[in-house]
Structures are given as C-alpha cells and as structure tokens.
C-alpha cells in the first residue's frame, strides 16, 4: 500500500504511523522519519508552495522507485504545503518491509530525493521579511549516495 499525500494544515505523525503500522501487520518492521520546522535562526514561519500538476506525481515517482529498489510491503509519504510554524511537522515518511535494512534505507532514500528533487519552493519569514531557500550543497551530496 502506498499512501502519498500533500497536506494543507497540521497533522498528527503519531496517528498516521499508528494506522500505517496497523495496516502492515505482515511486515517484519516499519521505519519512519518525521521532519519538523527547525526552530532557531530567527525563523518565525516557513511557507512551502507547490505546483499541483507536478508535485504529487513527483512524490509518487520517488516512492515507487523506493518500493521497487527496497522491496517494500508499503510506504507512506505525507508532505505539508502552506505556512507552518517552528516545531510543526513538515514531512512524515514510513516504510514497511520484511527486513529492517530495507525499511530504513527506503526512508533514507525517499527523504534524500525529496530534499533535492521534489517540486517544492520554500521561503522562511524572519524579522526582516521573507527569504527564499535554496537547496544546500549537502542535499545534492546526499542524493548522489544512491546512484
């Protein structure tokens, strides 16, 4: 089962994981990652914009690649769009597989690809206004690990 969503508004990572785990009782393990808006640096808010015709399809493509590569029983990828506050969840990933290494690696793979290849544009609000965010060099290095 693949559960891939764009979400406007706050969501509960714990609730989503509970449901995902319950739906994959046959799996040997479930790995997950939850990204949050990082507090600090004077950031007051983070805004993610997306382009509907491309963004969800792009996420589906990344997760399907992970499913084929790591032999998953299922995967979940929820990503928020809109304005969010420090400490709030931005992204939740989960992968269920027969063996733990596949589940852990799948989550790592999907997150690295989302960070540099997904159709999101991000800006953060600081005391002096909004600033657009570019990918870090480290994000490009992270994705290169999977080639």
């Amino acid at each position: 089962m693949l559960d891939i969503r764009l979400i406007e508004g706050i969501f509960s990572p714990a609730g989503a994981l509970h449901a995902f785990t319950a739906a994959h009782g046959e799996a040997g393990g479930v790995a997950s990652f939850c990204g949050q808006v990082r507090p600090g640096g004077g950031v007051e808010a983070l805004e993610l914009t997306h382009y509907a015709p491309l963004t969800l399809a792009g996420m589906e493509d990344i997760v399907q690649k992970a499913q084929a590569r790591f032999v998953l029983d299922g995967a979940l990828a929820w990503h928020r769009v809109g304005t969010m506050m420090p400490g709030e969840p931005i992204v939740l990933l989960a992968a269920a597989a027969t063996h733990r290494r596949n589940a852990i690696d799948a989550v790592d793979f999907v997150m690295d690809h989302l960070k540099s290849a997904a159709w999101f544009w991000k800006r953060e609000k600081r005391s002096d206004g909004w600033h657009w965010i570019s990918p870090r060099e480290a994000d490009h290095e992270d994705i290169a690990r999977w080639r």
Partner: protein
Amino acid sequence: MIKVVYLGKLADIAREAQSDFASTSDGLGWAGLLDLLESHGSTELADAVRADTVKLAVNGQLLADRALLDARDGDEIALLPPVSGG
C-alpha cells in the same frame, strides 16, 4: 488564452501568481514567451525566467528543452525555478 503560472521567487518578481495572455493562431514559442514577459511584466522578470536553471512545464508535462515550447489556446505554462526541496 494561455495561462502562465509563476512558481517560487518568480511569483515575487512577477508580483502575481499567474498571468493570462491572449493566444495567437501560430502558437507561443520560447522567444515569444520571453517577449510577452518583458512587455507585460518587466525586463527583470524576463531575465529571471531566461536563467538556465528555470524549467518549463506545459499542462503538467516537463519540457526537456525550453526551445520546444509551442503553447496553444487553453494551455498552461508553468515557470519552474530551482526547487528548495522538501
């Protein structure tokens, strides 16, 4: 009409999220689009869109080469600057 959607910082430069342009019978190509952006928007907008890192999608399909643009009445062109990542 041809709809042009500005993503990321291009929306700031355009000062709007999208524009509607009248279509012509012979289609809108890449050079024609840049001319429209300059005349209806600004030189700054046209220059920002001209950057090699900006990609184009037509009706949700990414173009492999911007020179392939041939937009017709009813089409939606998205101007996609480099992504920030998720």
